[in-house]
């Protein structure tokens, strides 16, 4: 059997499919570390995907598309923060509301602007092979011949891990999620930390969506995130909010997502539905095996109000 071809496809497209999950899950890692459960992540990704695609299509610039996705993500993150941090309203309700709204908004705008057409981007991001590494047989060209944004996502893992473990902000972030009252008493500005965390979460969600439409697929269709935002939340939980483990989880589920392509390449005859459902079943299975009990940050989902225990 053509194992080499399978491996190349799985690694090559799996690593690309992992990027939106990775970006969104890294952002969610920060948000959850600060005690915010962002169920609006799916919606933020979708709006990021639409905005990024629209801007890239109109300007012809991939970079501007990514930037637009990132900016709209920031706006949405701040909006989520305003409601849940400043006003202290229920995070689950706002998150689900945002996801419902985003599905409607992006579908509405897409239909209204493009009718029944499905335009694709004319330009795509060029590949950037890394010298020497990309010459490794079999895996080299699959792993080290990516579009620049993929390398950026990998670098961000290291950056996020460093921030979380080695900086004052990282320490305050962790303290806020575990015990906001104690953090506040120790002089941490809980509100500022949470706003920073959700801003980063929003930026990463918007960027993840834009990556999906602008770089990975080159088109937009309504509802195109098909639950990837929720998978990203699960990946953050599975990785126990540690960036390196989040990276492993994202790659695993990226490969699962691209499994149907891979099996087609080597000619395995299996109903595509069974392969397509694997990531979702896999998330449940992985949560059972890896997560165990009581691993959530203690203050997750709880609004913080000064002077109230």
């Amino acid at each position, binding site marked *: 059997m053509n194992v080499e071809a399978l491996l190349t496809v799985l690694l090559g497209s799996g690593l690309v499919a992992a990027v939106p999950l990775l970006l969104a899950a890294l952002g969610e890692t920060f948000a959850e570390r600060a005690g915010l459960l962002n169920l609006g992540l799916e919606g933020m990704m979708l709006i990021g995907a639409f905005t990024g695609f629209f801007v890239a299509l109109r300007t012809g610039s991939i970079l501007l598309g990514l930037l637009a996705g990132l900016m709209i993500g920031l706006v949405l993150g701040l909006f989520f923060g305003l409601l849940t941090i400043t006003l202290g309203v229920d995070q689950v309700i706002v998150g689900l509301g945002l996801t419902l*709204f985003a599905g409607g908004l992006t579908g509405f705008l897409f239909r209204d602007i493009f009718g029944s057409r499905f335009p694709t981007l004319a330009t795509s991001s060029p590949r950037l092979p890394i010298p020497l590494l990309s010459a490794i047989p079999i895996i080299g060209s699959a792993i080290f011949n990516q579009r620049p944004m993929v390398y950026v996502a990998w670098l961000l893992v290291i950056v996020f891990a460093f921030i979380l473990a080695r900086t004052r902000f990282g320490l305050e972030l962790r303290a806020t999620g575990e015990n906001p009252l104690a953090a506040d008493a120790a002089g941490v500005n809980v509100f500022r930390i949470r706003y920073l965390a959700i801003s980063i979460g929003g930026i990463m969600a918007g960027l993840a969506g834009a990556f999906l439409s602008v770089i990975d697929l080159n088109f937009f269709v309504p509802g195109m995130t098909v639950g990837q935002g929720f998978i990203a939340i*699960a990946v953050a939980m599975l990785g126990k909010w540690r960036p390196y483990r989040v990276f492993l989880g994202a790659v695993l589920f990226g490969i699962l997502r691209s499994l149907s392509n891979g099996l087609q390449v080597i000619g395995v005859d299996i109903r595509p539905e069974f392969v397509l459902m694997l990531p979702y079943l896999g998330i*449940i299975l992985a949560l059972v095996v890896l997560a165990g009990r009581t691993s959530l940050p203690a203050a997750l989902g709880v609004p913080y109000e000064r002077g109230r225990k």
Partner: protein
Amino acid sequence: MNNRPSLRAMVPLFSSILAIVAAFLAGGVFLWLVGKDPLAAYTILLTRGLGSRLGVTETLVKMAPLLIVSAGLLITLKAGVWNIGLDGQFLIGASMVGVVAPLLAGTMPLALMLLICAVVGFTGGLLWGVIPALLKVFYGLNEIITTIMMNFVAVYVTSWLVKGPFKDPGVVAPQMATIPPEYRLPPLPFTDRVHAGVLVGIVAVLLVYGLFHSSTLGFELTVLGRSKKAALHAGMPVNRLTLAALLLSAGLAGLAGANDVLGVKGLFQGEWNPEYGLTGFALVFLARLNGLLVIPFAYFFAFLLFGGEMMARTAKIPAFYVPMLEGMMLIFFALSMYIERRYLHRAERVEKII
């Protein structure tokens, strides 16, 4: 002042209405920004939805699944658990009825067939809820993520069923066998096509209302919803209560699927996914988890679904406008809760001081 307590009791309803009005206003501004005429659109929504016999009929038809789903949601939300897997449970229940109903049609009295189909739909939905429910109870796994994941699995499972083993071989499109019209839910007297599903829905909601107002189970579920710790300390069977809440709501979602196959579509079609789940959340929250309020709010949301179709057809406003509005309603509802908490409670404090 004597009427003051009753006025205070009206505040929750008032803030829900405020949230709906705010969503319509924000939606109107959005329509205006993208170059549509919001007034014309809302006029169509109102006149077609409320002012015509067709509108009222269609609204009552669409109300049935919303009511049935909401009955289950009421149970879970009052018990403090999140079943976001309603869409998947709906699809599984619907597809099982799609398989069973055409086989049974004609072999037995209609009433018996409908009863069996209702049980099949309920069981299908319930079974789909078993995995997240057991994982929640025995592994402490958060049900939000697992129920959402099960939705996507259900989409692919039913897609396989309808394209593979249970495809109607006589048709090109992926669909199951069609139920002959005389073996579907019959229309109610004096109506064109409003069928018994809406009554099933009203009964289900009233039963849940009764459950919470005059039964031990309802009381225990309420305590669980308010504080799991309190329920544990009082020696209540927390695990069994959680299971009951999740499974009942899952079963009811499956029953809603049975309703739509037997009363509306007459068959199970591929690519069909009405996604009542999040609509149900908006509905039940706006009804403030009050079973009696759920009924008029279900009418309102069904009206919105039908009016959305009308706006899409006549005012060139994509049907996506409805989920947009519903999402905004949820967000404005959360906001109105904040305002309520802040100003109402401040008023209470002032009263105490005086």
